[in-house]
């Protein structure tokens, strides 16, 4: 714990935002910082949850402890909806209260004696959970990296996909696609190389697909679309950004039966034990919501909400492009990654906040290779997104 740097990124930004609002009480702050969904959850989904809540007050409808791995129906629905043609089954799916918790449970399972690689920049929870578990060395202030973690640079020069020929072998590789924060979605060819890399090195790939529904081209939506992935990969996903479940809390992890430790022991057996010992299942009401999400009506409704945020992303992308910035991401993810060459991202963050009252996220919060970039999140009411873009145009014209 002593090794961890300062505060987790997003509470730190929230702190700065609060301080700013105290300074400018009439400021009309718009938040395009933390990737927090803003649009109401479609009724078909909340109706499912309300129905379950009411049922808990009846003799026939009351249920106590659920299976720690999740309700059978929901596991089956996830398997068939997202992994139908990929030969993954209900028993490969572990329902959770979200990706952040799952990442930690995976780390607890792996233990302190594994090495890991992350993209640079990347979602901070992979690194922070690794530090907490004792997998890393000290933080080195000069390079802004923890010892013993392999950082795989992702920048415009390499098309936001790591140059695997320069990456050292680690036991675990965390990979997020579509990527938070860069917005980049890896191609089929790139993921094939990644799977081969993992295979050659005997590594386990932890693939975060939380933004898969935002893909607008034919980039793979699941690592399991790549042949051979079942022997090397675990996939983590979430209802947060699909169904606005950021507060409701529901996600899942796929651990294929074919994934084995070096002694042949199935990883899924250990994950099952972790889930049974350190967890007690996702809330049954959230799970009822999840099931409603995966009904035909629910799926259609989720697509509409995702489409809404995708339109926000287009508006933001167009704005920065028109101002002459190099803009990345956006096409396959609800994040726009804007380049401010030669500038410190916390300085840009502060300037944008001070002069436009818009909260963004400084790229260096995601790793040293994020410096010089700002992440603009596309979650927001349309009016706020339009207003924020107006203010950006005024600041940077």
């Amino acid at each position: 714990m002593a090794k961890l740097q300062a505060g987790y990124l997003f509470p730190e930004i929230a702190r700065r935002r609060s301080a700013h609002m105290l300074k400018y009480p009439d400021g009309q702050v718009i938040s395009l910082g933390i990737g927090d969904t803003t649009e109401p959850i479609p009724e078909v989904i909340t109706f499912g949850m309300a129905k379950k809540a009411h049922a808990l007050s009846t003799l026939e409808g009351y249920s106590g402890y659920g299976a720690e791995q999740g309700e059978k129906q929901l596991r089956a629905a996830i398997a068939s909806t997202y992994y139908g043609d990929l030969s993954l089954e209900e028993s490969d799916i572990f329902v959770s209260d979200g990706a952040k918790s799952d990442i930690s449970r995976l780390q607890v399972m792996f233990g302190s004696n594994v090495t890991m690689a992350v993209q640079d920049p990347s979602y901070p929870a992979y690194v922070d959970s690794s530090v907490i578990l004792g997998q890393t060395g000290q933080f080195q202030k000069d390079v802004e990296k923890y010892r013993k973690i392999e950082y795989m640079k992702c920048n415009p020069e390499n098309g936001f996909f790591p140059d695997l020929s320069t990456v050292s072998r680690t036991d675990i590789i965390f990979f997020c696609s579509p990527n938070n924060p860069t917005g980049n979605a890896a191609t089929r060819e790139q993921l094939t190389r990644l799977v081969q890399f993992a295979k050659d090195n005997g590594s386990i790939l932890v693939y975060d697909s939380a933004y898969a529904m935002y893909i607008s081209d034919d980039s793979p939506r699941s690592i399991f679309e790549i042949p051979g992935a079942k022997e090397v990969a675990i996939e983590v996903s979430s209802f947060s950004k699909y169904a606005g479940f950021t507060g409701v809390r529901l996600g899942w992890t796929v651990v294929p039966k074919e994934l084995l430790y070096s002694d042949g022991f199935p990883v899924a057996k250990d994950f099952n034990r972790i889930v049974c010992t350190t967890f007690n299942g996702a809330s049954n009401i959230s799970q009822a919501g999840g099931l409603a999400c995966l009904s035909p009506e629910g799926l259609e409704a989720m697509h509409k909400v995702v489409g809404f945020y995708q339109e926000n992303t287009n508006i933001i992308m167009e704005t920065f492009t028109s101002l002459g910035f190099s803009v990345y991401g956006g096409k396959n993810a609800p994040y726009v990654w804007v380049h401010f060459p030669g500038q410190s991202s916390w300085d840009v963050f502060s300037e944008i906040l001070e002069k436009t009252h818009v909260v963004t996220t400084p790229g260096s919060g995601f790793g040293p290779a994020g410096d010089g970039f700002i992440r603009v999140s596309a979650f927001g009411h349309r009016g706020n997104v339009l207003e924020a873009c107006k203010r950006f145009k005024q600041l940077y014209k």
Partner: protein
Amino acid sequence: MAGVCTRVTRNLNMEKLRNGYLFPEIAMRELEHMKKYPTAKVISLGIGDTTEPIPDVVTSSMANHARRLSTVEGYRGYGAEQGNKALRKAIAETLYGDLPIKDTEIFVSDGSQCDISRLQLLLGSNVTIAVQDPTFPAYIDSSVIIGQTGDFQDETGKYQNIEYMPCRPQNNFFPDLTTTATTDVIFICSPNNPTGHAASRKQLEQLVEFARANGSIIIFDSAYAAYVTDDSPRSIFEIPGAREVAIEISSFSKFAGFTGVRLGWTVVPDELLFSNGFPVIKDFNRIVCTCFNGASSVAQAGGLACLSSDGLMAVQSVVDYYKENAKILGDTFTSLGLDVYGGINAPYAWVHFPGMKSWDVFTELLEKTHIITVPGCGFGPGGEEHIRVSAFGHRECILEASRRLKSLLS
């Protein structure tokens, strides 16, 4: 299955864990039994799973919250990882009333089982723990997983490097602290799962003094506090000096029937410091922000409703229903001449079957009365010769179970 192995070494701590966490093991035996006797009416007094519907005042609140998430004004995204402010305040004011517990010291969670693991993450692998024997298995299993223990020894039924504190009728189910080695952390559950014993004020004062003298941290599990009938303390913080040595975990599971809804909390006092003076609460906050994303907002809305004056009355009457069940079961075993413990301040009866192995008693009871119980050894070697009978069940099932037990054992 022939397959390609990765070159990732399995976590040695996972290898140390004994096969089959207790309750899935019992569930498996129950399934086998039901296959063997398809027409038998199995009554489960095994896993402590609540059975009675949640009061309407609570579920309506959750349903309303869910519906509001479909509106522009009512939609909420990420909540504070530490929990909804109003709920934290309500827990502090309603459940800790006259004790100086601040809302900022309360961390709302998705239940004790998760909190125990997050606390272990916080503590890390280099601490030593003491547990009661018998005890709720999660303290031990989470300790093994995090790497605090040595190997399991079949002869003793114990893991090396854990201090087991026997809790028996002879010592009034409370550890003899004069013979307990010093450890960094002491897990105490009161009212106790599985023995049902609620520690007295005097016992807890001794515990706090012991912890203060040894510089230890007490993790006090008060999940069953609502079941206390006499004047046994409901919170460790009723004991002076506890704020500098204790963390308290608790849960809405057995209090409000939230076993599936998932809601609990942990109290970390501001005064609790590591040896270098660093506040434990700061590290716990960091764990919660990094490894967790808050309890479900719907569950939290339910929690708030439980703590309204109508809600409290309603959930307390369900608790009273289970307490009456416990009394019926306790009386049944007593009438059969068996020594029964617990049952008064907890929803568990702890029944002694001298000279018999607890899995044998479990099996015989299951085979002959179709009643699921829990073999005491599942809670540690100190549980041998005992059976835990849970009082969660529909009244008719409890009464039917009593009838069957009387026929078998009289």
